[in-house]
């Protein structure tokens, strides 16, 4: 008896699962949409931009591509977007699905710009084993280097930051590394604020110059915690430089409890309230006592009249 119930339950579960699977696969994309091609080339610049956007908008559910560490959602878990069976789809198909969404997958039609969506697709394509050869177009080729160094120069007068990325070639010569994206981050309470600007890629000398925002608050002395790093760890491993720089606008935090206000607790009550209240209480009690004293005097008055 128990077994039959178990069997029925199992069958029921299988039924539900197969239903949801069928649902996941039954994501029809119109043929016109399938034909769309990624208008952006799979340069390393675009791929790393795509990775950034992926980490912001996709990673929280889908996890890292090819790692399959997605959020275990039921009934349909998010797909590993770096898996080969996902990447067999055309660019247009992925683009359509990102736009429209289905079930727990939200639509990104208006939340991410078209350019950003294509960058993400370019990034995902970089995991595609079938297209790997094709995507090596228009990339800057840096020589093979060792001992990669990140140097940071801060110009406090102009509020500029100059980072230099260099490595030692096989011939023993230190050369600048070109076309590498850098991130200039300012530490805030709950995360890092990106102040890299539009084009934070190293030039042919390996330099990248960034203008620090003129109006970003720092602490009382204008100091901020700065973190400069190579955006993508995949190139040369983790390369970063953390430094306290005096580039922010000196800001004195205002303590709202410094002023007396109606909303303050007893300790912060406005003087006029304290004076009025205490005065009122004193006045009332003095009237009461006055009356009492007069009443005590009454019998004495009566005696003296006699």
């Amino acid at each position: 008896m128990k077994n039959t119930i178990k069997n029925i339950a199992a069958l029921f579960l299988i039924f539900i699962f197969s239903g949801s699977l069928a649902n996941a696969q039954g994501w029809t994309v119109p043929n016109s949409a399938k034909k769309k091609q990624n208008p952006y080339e799979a340069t390393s610049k675009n791929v790393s931009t795509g990775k950034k956007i992926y980490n912001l908008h996709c990673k929280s559910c889908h996890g890292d591509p090819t790692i399959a560490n997605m959020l275990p959602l039921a009934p349909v878990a998010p797909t590993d977007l770096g898996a080969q069976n996902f990447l067999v789809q055309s660019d247009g198909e992925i683009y359509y699905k990102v736009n429209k969404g289905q079930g727990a997958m939200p639509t990104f039609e208006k939340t991410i710009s078209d350019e950003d969506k294509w960058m993400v697709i370019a990034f995902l394509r970089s995991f595609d084993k079938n297209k790997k050869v094709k995507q090596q177009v228009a990339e800057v080729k840096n020589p093979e280097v060792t001992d990669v160094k990140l140097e940071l120069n801060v110009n406090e007068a102009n509020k500029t930051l100059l980072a230099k990325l260099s490595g030692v070639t096989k011939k023993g010569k230190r050369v600048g590394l070109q076309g590498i994206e850098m991130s200039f981050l300012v530490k805030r309470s709950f995360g890092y604020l990106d102040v890299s600007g539009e084009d934070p890629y190293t030039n042919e000398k390996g330099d990248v110059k960034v203008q620090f925002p003129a109006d970003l608050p720092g602490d009382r002395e204008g100091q901020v915690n700065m973190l400069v790093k190579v955006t993508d760890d995949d190139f040369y491993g983790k390369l970063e430089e953390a430094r306290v720089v005096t580039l922010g606008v000196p800001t004195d935090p205002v303590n709202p409890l410094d002023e007396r206000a109606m909303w303050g607790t007893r300790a912060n009550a406005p003087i006029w309230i304290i004076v009025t209240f205490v005065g009122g209480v004193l006045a009332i009690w003095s009237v009461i006592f006055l009356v009492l004293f007069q009443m005590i005097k009454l019998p004495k008055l009566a005696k003296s009249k006699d």
Partner: protein
Amino acid sequence: MKEETSNNSRRKFLKSFGISVGAAGVVSSFSLIGAAKAAAKKPAEMVNLLTQDGQLVQVDKNQLRPTVNEPLDELQKRGREGIPGKSFVMVIDLSKCRNARKCMSACQNHHQLRADQHHINVLQMQDADHTAPYFMPKPCQHCDNPPCTKVCPVDATFKRQDGIVLIDNERCIGCRFCIAACPYSARIFQWTEPKDAEKYKDLTYNIEANVPQKKGTVSKCLFSADRLREDKLPSCVSACPNGVYYFGDRNEDAVTNGTSGETVRFSKLIEDNAGYTLMEELGTKPRVYYLPPKNRAFEFNGDLLNEENLH
């Protein structure tokens, strides 16, 4: 004769000693009985724990109790003072809210509230007959000119230096003046024994999370002040799956999105999206900013016919 009395007294002594030891044993075993009872209720869920001497043991989940290390005095003192140099603000992007209600359940979980009690509530809004309806999460606005703290007769609710408005259950007398004064209906009253009152009765009161909740007192949103102390975002902010919430420090002019973790300039976010505050005509100066529900990427799926849902 003499010996007998001494014998007697010894017997008496032993008796009373036995009783007192027995009583102590009973008292101390109450907790064990409680644990055993709890275990008897639902024996299924076992949790693996590593003991101090490195042994892996299986413990029933029902036997686990949250612990607080700091004494009450310390918690009250730092809770009243707040975090120096901070000025916390929240930004709620209405164009992204699709009524997932994850913020509400995370909040209720954190502050030990029942499902019908709200520190934060997602409301269905329609401003006029022919305007588009939208969802609006509504926590306490943590006003800079709070009407609620003005009316408290016992200094139980107060504003601290980082801008957060807190409530102290140790002082609250349950007069509910603050509930009447709040124009945003942000406060709730514990009419009955709170959820899991029995389970948390021995827990030290933490003013920054307002737990354990107490019957006959007022409770409200606290921006998860206990989490902020650990540099963590409030529960609702980190629980949102749709990127609705931004939270941060106005002194640093930066807010961080709870879903994507992206940090943006607060002033720019408000300026670019025409951010506003609720009922600014009252002069309450809220610390919760809203971005209008424009350009929404989904259809409104609420139920406006149900009068209960209308606000």
